[in-house]
């Protein structure tokens, strides 16, 4: 197992190197020059723009700048934001917990809703309940996040005033208000996750339910709860775990839209703001950080998968 983990960790090094080249290379493909904005936008003179470009080091060769950046990034120093002038690592550290709360809650919502729906659907394929779940999950997958957010805001905040339409209250300030403010972002972001988990579990469970060992378990008189809960679910959990790993990457990316709509200053809105402002260091730092988190989560999923399935370790 240790060798397996070591091999996986070592494989991350070239992966992160490639990611860092792509992330830093974004500066070459994103249109616009931050020097123009920093020099005064439409009021900027060409001379001042050139001065700012020199101040920012944008006149130096790409590889030299990349070398410096990657060296610092390896120590989690992403430099300073061109606008706020604050260390990017500090800004990420302040915002990431909010993103984690949104993504974590959405994942919990996805699991809490997705697993029961997957079980309802998977234990009796082609039944009425299965068809209902397939219909609901298909709709949930097809609905765009921003549209769902708008409908939820209109129905639950504007028309009925049950939940707040926007904003964030820290848990330490008021747990009740924190929960109230997080419900809509969780549902918005977690709906697709719930649907994906439900469908994945349905597929795996319906296959398992038709297998010999489940038939045997039933024939020896084991109660249905035990058959499904102990035997069928365990065998169906591996593909669901893979989906959960992939969903974490989706959830982190999905916070970009959700944080914007609900006015929450997390990491997703930080990336979007950085792109809007051509704040390249902030953009590179935040994207690299998200990539790092995604890679680590995938590593954890791989390890968990190996723990569940010894065949993976051998392969």
């Amino acid at each position, binding site marked *: 197992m240790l060798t397996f983990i070591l091999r996986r960790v070592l494989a991350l090094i070239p992966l992160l190197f490639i990611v860092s080249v792509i992330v830093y290379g974004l500066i070459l493909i994103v249109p616009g020059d931050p020097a123009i904005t920093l*020099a005064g936008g*439409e009021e900027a003179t060409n001379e001042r723009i050139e001065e700012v470009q020199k101040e920012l080091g944008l006149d130096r060769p790409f590889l030299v700048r990349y070398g410096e950046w990657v060296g610092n990034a390896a120590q989690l120093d992403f430099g300073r934001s061109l*606008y706020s002038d604050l260390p990017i690592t500090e800004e990420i550290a302040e915002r990431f917990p909010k993103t984690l709360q949104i993504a974590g809650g959405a994942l919990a919502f996805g699991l809490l809703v997705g697993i029961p729906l997957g079980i309802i659907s998977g234990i009796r394929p082609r039944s009425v309940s299965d068809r209902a779940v397939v219909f609901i999950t298909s709709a949930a997958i097809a609905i765009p996040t921003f549209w769902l957010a*708008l409908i939820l805001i209109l129905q639950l*905040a504007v028309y*009925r005033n049950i939940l707040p339409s926007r904003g964030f209250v820290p848990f330490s300030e008021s747990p009740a208000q924190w929960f109230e403010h997080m419900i809509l972002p969780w549902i918005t972001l977690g709906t697709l996750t719930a649907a994906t988990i439900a469908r994945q579990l349905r597929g795996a469970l319906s296959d398992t339910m038709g297998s010999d060992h489940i038939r045997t378990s039933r024939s020896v008189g084991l109660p249905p709860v035990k058959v499904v809960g102990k035997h069928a679910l365990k065998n169906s959990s591996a593909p669901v775990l893979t989906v959960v790993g992939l969903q974490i990457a989706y959830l982190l990316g999905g916070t970009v839209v959700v944080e914007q709509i609900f006015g929450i*200053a997390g990491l997703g809105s930080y990336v979007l703001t950085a792109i809007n402002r051509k704040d390249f260091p902030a953009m590179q730092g935040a994207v690299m950080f998200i990539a790092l988190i995604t890679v680590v989560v995938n590593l954890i999923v791989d390890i968990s998968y190996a723990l569940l399935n010894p065949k993976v370790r051998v392969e």
Partner: protein
Amino acid sequence: MKRRFLVAAFGAAIVAVSVTGGGTALAQSKGKINPNARLEFGMNMGGGGFSQRLQPDRMTAICDSVVGSQVFGTLIRRDIKTNKPVPNLAESWDIVDPSTFKITLRKGLTFQDGTPLDAAALKRDIDLKRVAPSTLAPTLGVISEVVPEADGRTVTIKLSQPVAGIMPLTFAGREGMIAAASSTDQKPVGAGPFKFDSQVVGQEIKVSKFPNYWDAKNVKLAGIDYKNLDTAQNGVLAVVAGDLDMVEGAGQANAPAENDPNTAIERATGADYWKLNLNTSKPPLDNVEFRRAMNYAIDKKAIAEALFPGNYELATQSYPKAFVDQHQKDLAGRYPYSVKKAKEALAKSGVKTPVTLTVVPPANNPNFSRFAEIVQANLKEIGVDLTIAPSTNLLQTFFRDKQGDFVTTLWPARPDPSVTIQRNFTPNQVTNAGNNYSPEIPTALAEIQAADTQAAARAGYKKAINIIVDQAYEVPIFFPVLSNVHQKYVVSDDWQVYGSCQGVDFSKVAITTKKK
């Protein structure tokens, strides 16, 4: 059993969502003023319009001033209803001659850190702003010397060009926000009505009433909490839902508030206008008859109705009717919408159709693309094929790299109306993409800038606007009505709606005890 329970629960949830009653009854206006109430104002802190740079000499985005104007105040204030400069931190000013401007501060002004705002502090601040790396250097670079007078409250500003006439309204903008020596982007310190408290970057900014502000007795709010939101539409929804006190409205986005019993909308006419900014050095746009054909061919009303239904004034020139010193009534009918006249002008131009042009709408706002699509349909009728090529950075692609033939854009007016002419129709200005101009315009502008009142500048405006319209240097479309959507418990007896991300004059706003 379980299945039946789940189905029942699901059904109950649907029924519950469908039949639950409407919104809460928020307090109506009319009531006592609550001196401890804080106003929750929504604004987009995440877009390119807000830079987080809160120092006046470092601000780079138009929305930065919405916070800055409250923390710093301005030397002079522009009354939105009369468009006239009125005293603020400065009690008076004098255009001594076209190259000399004198300004006198009120007595006993202090910054929020306790240091005095006197002539020496004013000189220090203006000297900082007028040279690079200040982002105000392009505007204030015309100042050659700032001399404090013996009274300690007056400074004489010497100018390298005869433009003293524009100084009063120039100092009503970011140029007139005076920062203390201790002020920084993270903790701005000024002498305005509200003192900076704290900021959660991109999420929230809090300011509280500054008790030593010169007009503190008339400031009725205890503070302002600026809250981040993504779009005007969601902001208006948040006001209707009771989660925000006020947001800046925008055309169709205001719809949910129009008939809501708890909200109100304040409106004002501004000089921001939607337009086609043409690169007049590129053929066939270098041909005046072709430009006239475009002015005839565009259905301005269709565009305005699509973007700001019922909330606009159609534009015939660069200033709306309310700007009486600038607007030229006799030019109103110069380019009526007429495909026939457009085709006649096109024939006169000698340009062979079909001709293909490229429009570059800003990609960050779908309204500009809708605007471009209507223009595309209009121009098709006169044999002009239009390619739409959105850009995420207009400043770079169109104005600097000269890609495309024209842009669908919004010109955000500055406090001093002459800036519109200067930036768009005089040489060596970034926003004059073609760098093409009539030599008479700078002369007329000089006349405007040297005049000591707006009324005295009328003749200069008449000359400049006549040339701009006659030469069809642009296609002005419409002036959107500026609006602010607020709860009815937010009251004011003098709404000063600035728009363009400037909100309202918060020092004239109060909250009644009706706010829960």
